[in-house]
């Protein structure tokens, strides 16, 4: 009955009537009503009473329950967001069966555990589950999936309230999963917004992850994933993507991640991936790359970042093509005098060259790494000399005769105008 | 009018005035003479308060001028070099100085005096011109008017006729004599000795920072048995040289 892979746009529009529709569709299944005054007044009772394929409709009210184990394929559907309150004493839902749907619930107050990963909804070793349109408040881990496959997490709001890393888990946490869809969720106030470890062939899209205590999204050892149209804003350390390959990241917005250790996106040991049409705006560092190979970075907007791109010397064969670098304090910084990466046909607002043949491509190459960038790398407090006349003169001298900055880090075909796509 | 009491002044190692004491009587024209570097300008500037003496006192009208600026209400000074703010017009400059010297003797009417002199020296057509566009002669006329405008008791002129055309020169001298007859004291330095003969009642001859001679020019000429002041002074200097070599 649950078909996780459907046209998500249609679903997005009909989200409001979805649960009602599925109830009608399954007319021959039993419907079990739960309300505080009903004969079945707790979700736990309803789950015990339910048979495979039944729908439990939870009506508005406050249900102080926890450790609800779902071991059969059923649907739990809330009307007007009934509240399931764990009273900070433990995990609320544990799903151990395939084909389970949970929607329309407000799940709150799981409480902290330093031994176990308590969650609002935990799914373990399941397939084809749908977690949709729930509100999770103050739930240590929000939605936690382990060793699962082909599930959809859609339209949930996961909101944490703690202020430090130890008191909270991740909003959406996936471990050893594949073929998952994470879409349209609004995540805030957790350690990491979305956490992926050993997850493959999954898609993350249209999510908003903001004000997390650490990363807006955190990716480890997760190959062949795609994420797009997400917004990662104002997270303490931006987004971290590590030890993964074949990642396709496109049309995301990374903005306002600016603490002293903050990046728009941190790439560590990433290879054979594509970063396309993203917006990096107002981050301390737009893209930080360490040990990355064969990444194609194309058609991105880097605007008003402190450092647009920081690429370390151990990165090879990455291609920066047709990006816009506009009003960044530093465009590119590297810690090595050699560069094995390609910069081609980018637009640089710092470029001061000319275009005599009017082909839209500047006639003199552009060197995005300035001497001062290099100095600041070696002697961080020197940043206080930013934009002083002395530094301008120093940069000019280095521009005329490059001695220290990497000679190969150069855009031979800088564009004269901002690139549109 | 002016009492200078053993003034000493040195600039660095160079001692310019070595104890000058002099009495300048009221209602006379007194010329300060002396070779270049004898301390004429320094003496004048001491009286004006531009140069502060190392030792000694200066009294003007019985009032010590040390740490005092109000006494300058009674002085009209004509500096040697006439340079003014380039972008002000002549009448603005007049107004500026009149503005600075307001609240003085109510009998004075500097505006009226000023316009009299403007027509006397015929600079009406320059009144609205910026000072940078003026010729040296016109600028000197402006300089002269600035000194004469306030009807003070004491005039100090430093090389007043340099750059003036003959007509203005004559008119200036006439004005000076007229002022003398009004009981004003006039102190001037000049290189033109005929002028001294013509105008001054008394000369003060400075030599190497000391008063070498003070008295009337006629006496000096009689004394040295010469018929021009120039020759008398030359003789006096020669005698001094002989004295030094002996």
């Amino acid at each position, binding site marked *: 009955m649950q078909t996780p892979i459907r046209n998500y746009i249609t679903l997005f529009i009909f989200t409001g009537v979805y649960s009602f529709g599925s109830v009608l569709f399954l007319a021959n299944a039993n419907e079990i009503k739960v309300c505080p005054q009903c004969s079945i007044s707790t979700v736990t009772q309803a789950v015990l009473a339910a048979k495979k394929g039944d729908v439990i409709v939870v009506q508005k009210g406050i249900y102080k329950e926890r450790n609800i184990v779902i071991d059969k394929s059923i649907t739990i559907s809330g009307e007007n967001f009934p509240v399931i309150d764990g009273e900070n004493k433990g995990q609320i839902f544990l799903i151990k069966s395939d084909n389970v749907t949970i929607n329309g619930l407000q799940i709150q107050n799981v409480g902290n555990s330093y031994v176990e990963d308590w969650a609002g909804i935990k799914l373990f070793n399941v397939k084809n589950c749908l977690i949709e349109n729930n509100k999770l408040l103050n739930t240590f881990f929000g939605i936690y999936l382990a060793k699962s496959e082909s599930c959809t997490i859609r339209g949930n709001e996961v909101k944490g309230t703690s202020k430090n890393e130890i008191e909270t888990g991740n909003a959406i946490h996936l471990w050893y999963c594949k073929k998952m869809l994470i879409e349209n969720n609004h995540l805030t106030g957790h350690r990491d917004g979305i956490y992926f470890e050993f997850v493959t062939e999954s898609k993350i899209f249209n999510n908003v992850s903001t004000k997390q205590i650490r990363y807006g999204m955190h990716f480890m050892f997760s190959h062949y994933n795609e994420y797009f149209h997400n917004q990662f804003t104002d997270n303490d350390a931006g987004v971290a993507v590590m030890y993964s390959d074949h990642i396709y990241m496109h049309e995301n917005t990374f903005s306002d991640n*600016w*603490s*002293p250790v903050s990046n728009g996106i941190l790439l560590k040991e990433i290879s054979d991936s594509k970063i396309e049409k993203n917006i990096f705006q*107002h*981050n*301390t*560092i737009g893209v930080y790359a360490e040990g990355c190979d064969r990444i194609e970075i194309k058609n991105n907007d880097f605007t*008003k*970042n*402190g*450092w647009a791109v920081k690429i370390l010397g151990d990165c090879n064969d990455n291609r920066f093509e047709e990006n816009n670098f506009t*009003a960044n*304090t*530093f465009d590119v910084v590297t810690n090595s005098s050699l560069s094995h990466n390609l910069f081609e046909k980018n637009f640089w607002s710092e470029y001061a060259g000319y275009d005599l043949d009017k082909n839209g491509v500047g006639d003199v190459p552009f060197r995005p790494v300035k001497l001062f960038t290099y*100095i600041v790398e*070696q*002697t*961080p*407090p*020197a*940043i*206080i*000399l*930013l*934009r*002083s*006349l*002395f*530094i301008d003169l120093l940069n000019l001298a280095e521009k005329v005769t490059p001695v220290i900055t990497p000679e190969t880090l150069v855009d031979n075909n800088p564009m004269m105008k901002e690139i549109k796509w | 009018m002016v009492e200078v009491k053993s003034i000493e*002044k040195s*600039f660095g190692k160079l001692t310019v005035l070595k104890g000058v004491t002099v009495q300048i009587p009221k209602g006379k024209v007194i010329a300060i003479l002396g070779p270049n570097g004898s301390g004429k300008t320094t003496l004048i*500037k001491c009286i*004006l*308060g*531009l*140069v*502060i003496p190392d030792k000694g006192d200066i009294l003007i009208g019985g009032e010590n001028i040390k740490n005092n*600026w*109000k*006494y*300058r209400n009674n*002085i009209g*000074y004509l*500096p040697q070099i*006439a*340079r*003014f*703010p*380039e*972008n*002000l017009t002549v009448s*603005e400059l007049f107004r*500026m*100085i009149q*503005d*600075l*010297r307001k609240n003085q003797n109510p009998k004075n009417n500097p505006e009226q005096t000023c316009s009299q002199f403007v027509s006397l020296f015929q600079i009406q057509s320059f009144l609205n011109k*910026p000072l940078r566009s003026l010729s040296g002669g016109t600028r000197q006329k402006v300089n002269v008017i*600035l000194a004469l405008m306030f009807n003070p008791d004491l005039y*100090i002129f430093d090389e007043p006729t340099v750059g003036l055309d003959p007509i203005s020169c004559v008119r200036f001298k006439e004005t000076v004599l007229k002022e003398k007859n009004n009981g004003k004291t006039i102190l001037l330095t000049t290189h033109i000795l005929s002028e001294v003969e013509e105008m001054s009642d008394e000369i003060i001859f400075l030599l190497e920072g000391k008063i070498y001679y003070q008295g009337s020019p006629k006496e000096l000429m009689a004394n040295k048995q010469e018929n021009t002041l120039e020759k008398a002074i030359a003789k006096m200097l020669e005698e001094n040289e002989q004295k030094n070599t002996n």
Partner: protein
Amino acid sequence: MQGIIKIFKYSFYDVLRSRWTVLYFLFFLISTFALLYFSGNMSKGIVSLMNVTLTITPLISTIFGVMHYYNSREFMELLLSQPIKRSNIFIGQYLGLAISLSLSFVAGTFIPFLTYGIFVSPEVWDFSLLIFTGALLSFIFVALAFLISILNENRIKGFGIAILMWLCMAVIYDGLILMVFVTFNDYPLEKAAVIMTTLNPIDLSRVMILLKLDISALMGYTAAVFNQFFGTTSGMIISLLSLSVWVVLPIVLFNSFAKRKDF
């Protein structure tokens, strides 16, 4: 006080009508328009204008200050022989020059930004800070120029020293800071950096403006210390105090020299 105002009034008229002041105004007018036109947006325009302002304003103020002093040397003698206090003459002249230079600067930069709609943009405070520091730098460097001039009767020497002073503040000082940083790289230098910056008016103005503009870069890695200092109210007060000391101290020194000086 009345004396100061009288002298100031005419000195101000005089300087304001000088073709150099007009050129100075036109320079800022044209270059600000050009910067706004080529950078296309207000905040980038402010950054570029900051670079121009921090270099040109001190330089021109220094040159004008020295030139004005030496050119009005004879006229000052005439003024000194008038019944007016010495300090009034010099402070009046100083204010006349400093205020008319700041006015040229402010008008020259303000008009272009006004036509680009600075008042309805979020950058209005950044721009105000830039204008304010630019004007303050004029006051500082005219004062320093006057001080150098009064200490040097020889015009060429005075000019040379003044330009050298500008070079030291605008360029060499930063080179020295960098040398200190590189040499003592192993030590924590952030506090030293803050102190050294506060001591140079050009650097201080630059950092004050930068913390408003390039804040994302400055906040990175090491600069938390800078922000902790300059970002707070007390840091701002200390900065402004330091800048005012740079105005007041040369004037006080100048005044005490002027009192004893022979003209």
